[in-house]
């Protein structure tokens, strides 16, 4: 099944889009929303790190790496489900 017909293509793209928007929303959360509260989070200290500082220095970065890994794994799964992965 190399070629998708119109309705399969629609389904495939709907699934792909849903994954994209989910990761996009998490990207906004870790890229922006968390740091809106940096001043408040900084009142909490863990191992010497004020939490707001920690999130910008490490926390969000770890989230970004995981989001990219998740995208690769989940999209590959969608491709295989529709049989459009590469040989």
């Amino acid at each position, binding site marked *: 099944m*190399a*070629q*998708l017909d119109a309705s399969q*293509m629609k389904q*495939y*793209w709907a699934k*792909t889009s849903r*994954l*994209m928007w989910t*990761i*996009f929303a998490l*990207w906004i959360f*870790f*890229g*922006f929303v968390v*740091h809106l509260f*940096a*001043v408040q989070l*900084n009142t909490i200290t*863990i*191992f*010497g*790190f*004020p939490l*707001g*500082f*920690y999130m*910008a*220095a*490490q926390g*969000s*970065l*770890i989230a*970004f*790496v995981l*989001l*990219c*890994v998740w*995208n*690769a794994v989940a*999209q*590959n799964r969608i*491709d295989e489900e529709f*049989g*459009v*992965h*590469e*040989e």
Partner: protein
Amino acid sequence: MADTRGTTSNAFIGNLGKIYGGYAGGFIVFTLILAVLEQMGVPNKIIGYCFVILTIGVYAYIGILSRTMDISEYYVAGRKVPALYNGMATGADWMSAASFISMAGGLYLGGYNAMGYVLGWTGGYVLVGILLAPYLRKFGQFTVPDFLGARYEGNGARLCGVVVLFAASFTYIVAQCFGIGIITSRFLGIPFEVAIFVGLLGILVCSMLGGMRAVTWTQVAQYIILIISYLVPVVWLSTERYGIPIPQLTYGHALEQITALEDKLGVVKHHVAAFTDAKGQFSWVEFNNFWALVLCLMIGTASLPHILMRYFTTPSVREARNSVAWSIFFIFLLYFTAPAYAAFAKLEVYQNVIGQPIAELPAWVQNWAQVGGLLTIKDANSDGLLQLPELVINQDIIVLSMPEIAGLPYVVSGLVAAGGLAAALSTADGLLLAIANALSHDVYYKMIDPRATTGRRLIVARVLLVGVAIIAAAVASTRPSGIIQMVAWAFSLAAAGLFAPLVLGIWWKRTTKVGAITGMLAGFGVCLFYLVMTRYAPVTFKEMFGTDLWFGIRNISSALFGLPVAFVVTWIVSLMTPEPSKEMQDFVDSIRVPRGVVVTGA
């Protein structure tokens, strides 16, 4: 890789692990030998020379081995680069003088407020992975303007793409030449203006003969050196101070000590405090600029052609996606270390430099003061002791001078210099190739002479490469601005000009040729206008708008104004012009799916 036709052999790809493993081991042994030589009394100058010359020698060797006359090898490394190695190459391509040399310095000076760089220069990869890389790989041509030319039917969009690419990449490469100048000047002991041109040879020798193929395999080598040399000094200090070799965990203690010392020294702007101004108060201007910068850098990441074109080199769409994940992982290793680097450097300065008699300061102060006024000490109150305000240290030398400040053996300084050089050279190579490829492939071959022979195209590419490199070095020798500012401008320019047409071209079929072109011009125009006016004609700008800056946003985040304009104009004009043809919509469908051929739209 060195077979006669200049194409990448499968045996080479199969042995990558062995080759680069051996290479990394060799580099460590080389460093240890120099460490022993230093203990035996070999002068610092010789050690600096060894690091700079030997590493450039290795890159040159790889560059020459990778020479090629094959067009696909020259432009996209034969599309044979496995995800992991493309991730490393992207890491080196990505992490430039700004990341390696300046970012920790920015964090040292700016504290939390500079964290926008750390976030902005990592988070963009999420966008690259979900929005662009796999689809551009499926499209499968040579350059980013190629995509614009195909999706928006013709040379109009292609040319706009080349203009934005040139503006962004050239600004960026000037900053790299500047960084290369600082390092070679300091460690070879030659004047800055001469040092830039010495470094230029280092750039050219990697990229000229082998194009993308040579740049790819040198960048992998450069990543290994840059990550080792960034980690060594911080791991060393972490072990020395806290007994644990994981600086990313232990610098929490350093932060606590810094805060305590800040109170003692009377520093009101705390290192860890978020969005504070110089007086240590919460500031809306800092708050707004933080977001603006994070956004512009992230979007810029997903728009810079020298990064996007790295994903053209993987064997498949799937590998392109995996490669994005590897890229951000390798980049993450440096970025989550940078704040630790800054914290350890600050602690060293507060504890061991401030309060010392100025006459007894160690030699590194003298050495750095000689490199173009990047470090100045003025005994303002003439008490012979160094107070904090009397030490002015440029952000571009914090990383390079930290090993000396902390009293580590000179071999560590040499190592860090080699790392900084690797970072600057690798990015300069990627950028140079992006510019030269756009000019030779998109302008010369696609627009001027479509019947040019392969040999002729490759010669034109090389001539342009050398020309652009020389101009960039000449501009850098005039010291136009700090590294990190120039790089941030490049991100804004790319974001405002390229993000909308690329993303909408894939994700919104209704985007039309006219819509995309007007959107690009409008977005890029607004961004460029704001940047140039606020930078070079602030008086006129104030007369026109009655304010120094729109909403107090600094011009490093100019794309904040260009981006929305680009999207809105593209959207409105697309809806006003006729829907793209059925063939074009089929073309978009075909690049959305990994399997199958790409149908041509025209």
